[in-house]
């Protein structure tokens, strides 16, 4: 319980407007710091979410033994699809159709008719069974590809270094020595498939002169049935297969980005430190120039703690305003902005957690940037402070 009389709230507010230029500069600096923190945290959250939503809990991938997570180098015999479906009872089936998706996955140069240089893109040859297994994938525009056609994820343009949504239905792309007309655009709930180009498996195999597959993606009856698939792969060493839960596969991919995430948090720390230093510099200047005023307040009866609380109010009010402006800017201009990376593309996420971190750091800057100069000013002996004013 507060046992001393506080200064009026509006005293702190009016003080901010006494020196508008300095206040605006500090507000600008704090807003910039909070925006930077929000962007970096949005990067980390976007990357994590992209991997988290990509894997289904009841799905598994079957690929070549010893390939790790490098599906591009995996080679699975095409006949494996039928063998796996026939021998693993735990695979989901509906109306006689097994939830087994044979896929051919590769990174290759993509040529675009409106771009001079090719760009590295991700292509996946699929059958209609992919929609059974990849349940997050939904066609937003157009239709499933027919011969000579392909569909693109909503972040495929970003992966290729183009503005979001630049690749549209009717455009023509060229890869593996063939032209492909875009027949549709799909979304994959922000997962890694959003940055891919999907075409018909048989056509991609023809274009690449390959008969094998990169992987089989399967949906299990429930996630507890994974052991049956795993056991089958370990028994049938002649097929040279390994099975992995899809969630584990994407979690392993995420581990490769752990250094990136750690570096991002280091950047957050550095930017926050810079914000604190800037705030300290500004507040020291502001408070030391008011030594006489603060001493007068003490002379007329306000306790040192009350004066310190008032100074804290000013700092926190400024920091809160900066956090609010930064949050509005981030939501309006940064949220869902696509970012390219080696595994594809993902969107920055200004979600609740991001805003909480950014605004909390902003408020903390207000406190940390105000307290030291306030304490320094209030430690000055009263008579000396009155003389200096």
């Amino acid at each position, binding site marked *: 319980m507060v046992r001393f009389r506080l200064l009026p709230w509006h005293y702190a507010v009016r003080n901010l407007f006494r020196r508008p230029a300095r206040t605006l500069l500090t507000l600008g600096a704090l807003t910039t710091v909070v925006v930077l923190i929000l962007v970096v945290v949005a990067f980390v959250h976007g990357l994590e979410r992209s991997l988290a939503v990509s894997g289904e809990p009841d799905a598994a991938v079957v690929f070549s*033994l*010893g390939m*790790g997570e490098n599906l591009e180098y995996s080679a699975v015999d095409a006949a494996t699809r039928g063998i796996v479906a026939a021998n693993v009872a735990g695979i989901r089936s509906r109306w006689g159709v097994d939830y087994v998706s044979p896929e051919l996955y590769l990174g290759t140069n993509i040529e675009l008719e409106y771009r001079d240089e090719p760009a590295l893109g991700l292509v996946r040859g699929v059958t209609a069974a992919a929609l059974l297994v990849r349940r997050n994938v939904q066609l937003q525009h157009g239709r499933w590809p027919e011969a000579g056609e392909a569909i693109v994820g909503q972040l495929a343009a970003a992966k290729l270094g183009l503005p979001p949504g630049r690749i549209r239905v009717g455009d023509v792309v060229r890869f593996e020595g063939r032209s492909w007309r875009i027949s549709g655009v799909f979304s994959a709930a922000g997962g890694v498939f959003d940055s891919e180009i999907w075409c018909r498996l048989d056509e991609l195999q023809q274009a690449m002169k390959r008969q094998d597959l990169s992987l089989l993606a399967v949906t299990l009856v429930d996630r*507890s049935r*994974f*052991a049956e698939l*795993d*056991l089958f792969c*370990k*028994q*049938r*060493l*002649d*097929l*040279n297969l*390994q099975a*992995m839960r899809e969630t584990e596969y994407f979690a392993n991919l995420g581990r490769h980005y752990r250094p990136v995430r750690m570096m991002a948090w280091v950047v957050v720390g550095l930017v926050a430190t810079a914000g604190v230093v800037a705030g300290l510099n500004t507040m020291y200047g502001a408070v030391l120039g008011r030594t006489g005023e603060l001493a007068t307040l003490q002379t007329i009866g306000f306790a040192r703690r009350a004066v310190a609380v008032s100074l804290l109010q000013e700092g926190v009010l400024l920091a809160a305003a900066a956090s609010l402006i930064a949050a509005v800017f981030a939501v309006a201009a940064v949220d869902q902005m696509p970012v390219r990376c080696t595994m594809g593309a993902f969107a920055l996420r200004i979600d609740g957690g991001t805003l909480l971190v950014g605004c909390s750091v902003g408020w903390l800057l207000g406190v940390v940037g105000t307290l030291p100069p306030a304490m320094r000013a209030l430690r000055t002996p009263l008579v000396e402070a009155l003389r200096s004013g």
Partner: protein
Amino acid sequence: MMKRIALFVALIAAVGCQREPAQPTGSGAPAGGAYRLPAEPADVHEVIAAREQAVDGEPIVVVGRIGGSANPWVDEAAAFSIVDCSLLACSDREGDDCPVPWDYCCESDLPSATLLVQVVDDEGRMVPTDARELLAVKELQTVVVQGVARRDEANNLTVEATGVFVRP
């Protein structure tokens, strides 16, 4: 008042710290002890030799190191892969700091030197317990497995093990 609070907190901490975590027994869980052999069986075959010579349905004893993939275990089942002892794991190679040395990623013909071990009960059913928990074993340990050889239609060899000896 503060002293009483401090004393209370200290008592709570002392009680909490005295609780020791359960120590794993050296011979595995009580149920797993039934599958651990006290001594190494005779007539041991290496994995490669066993894959060539084993006859479906005949008893066999095979020695190998646990591994052969990044995850040589099967979830919630007493099954694991073993690799012929002549192959070198990544950790056996000087200067190799591979984080998953038991995947034998540096060996070229791994499938021909690997087989699957399934620990079965008296009725021939696979024990539904993770082998790590059942037998207290881990990757790259050398085990001698005693059981029955099973061949599938593709001539892959699986050993239905009734006993496992872990070499020190």
